[in-house]
């Protein structure tokens, strides 16, 4: 068996609901409310990133494990 994507902690909040977001599990972080403002290693200001945020749901930088 070949693991193509490891289990992540990608959780999502929808438009307008606020929250720290990342549009890219690889470290492309954007800030809040389906916005895209800052990013880490990647360029998050891409079409895919933007459309993902608005069209679907964006993924906050929220680690549910941190709540344990």
């Amino acid at each position: 068996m070949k693991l193509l994507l490891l289990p992540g902690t990608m959780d999502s909040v929808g438009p307008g609901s606020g929250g720290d977001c990342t549009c890219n599990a690889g470290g492309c972080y954007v800030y809040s409310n389906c916005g895209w403002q800052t990013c880490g290693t990647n360029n998050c200001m891409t079409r895919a990133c933007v459309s993902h945020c608005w069209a679907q749901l964006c993924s906050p930088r929220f680690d549910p494990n941190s709540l344990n």
Partner: protein
Amino acid sequence: MDRLKFSIYNRLVADENQYYLFNTRTGALAELSQYEKDRYLNLLNSDDEIFDGSDSFINSLEEGQFLVSRDLNEIRQLQIEAEKLNTAENRVLGLTIAPTLDCNFRCSYCYEKRSEKRNTMTTEVQEDLLTFIKNNLKGKSGLSVCWYGGEPTLTLSIIENLSEQIIKICEEAKKSYFASMITNGFLLTAKNIKIINKCRITALQITLDGLKTDHDKRRIHKNGNGTFDTIVNNLIENYDILPFVSLRVNTDRLNKNSVFELYNFFKDLNMLDKIAVYPGKISNIDDCYNKDSCLSSEDYSELAFNFSKITNESVQNLIPSRILARCTADSDHSFVIGPKGELYKCWDDIGKKEYATGDIRTGWNENNRYNQFKKSMPFSDVECINCDCLPICFGNCPRQFIKQKECSKYKYILDKTVILAVKRLTEE
């Protein structure tokens, strides 16, 4: 050794002789050989106990969390995490603010036409709003504002005034600030875009319904004229100073090709670096549109999938991620604020006073509407609880959930989305 069980959120996907295992709760994805697929199914359908460390295949399944502890109640786990997320400290305060319900367009499907009065925010309400923000920023890490309407650019002076003061409040309180705007784009002149940039609005959502012929049939200026040329010229002429634009293409049965045409239109203009085209589904909100014109969820899902195929959407964006909060409706730290200072739980409720759930001066009112949204959680729905898409759907739109549940597109296109993601993964 721990006893294990298969996650209830595993989805086995077959693509001819290729097999993939996707977990909707964790986003994990694995490729299985024919032998491994058969073994997986045998284990799944067997009453034999599974222990961790039994062999390498079991270890890999456990590493991918396709196998979980026998004691784990995954549904309860989702519920707990959603509750904790909502009550966690240091969340961002999310405000969707409509400084006016007035609009320069008369779109055929607009749900705001039901509003009795197209009010604009008075100076007094603006002052009350600032007080509301100061009070509600306590305990939050930052503020996220989405300027909404009506058409917010009709009240750009109000937005300019409020932004200046809100940014000051955030800076003094050492809180982060982010702002976006939903606009029809008609008034995005160079002068106005400069004001928008000054207000630190770094993202715009603009809607087109297609190329000129389709768009102008539906998105009509209040003077009766079409609006396509003005909006597109604004984008072209001011491209260098534009914030990033999410270009939503409102889609129904009458303009199913529009999103593809607009994508190619902006691609040919070499504008996709700053303009993100994507499809949006037109719904018949509060009977404001002809429901027969709307696409079914299944048809819309197919359209969205076909659009994903022609774009270069990354694997991370193709793979559906887990949802714990859907929108303002189920987030305790988010508010929609109307021009009179009324509070709502949903963007689509704005302007209808019986849907208001409070006021910026008196605060939140846990009335029927509020409680309706609070109860619109998928954990009370038998179909949702038994659905392997629950972690990536979460009951989908809360407003729709109250009336008639509308499942997310993944109900229809999850398998082929996983296959497409694998193809992209091998290309990357």
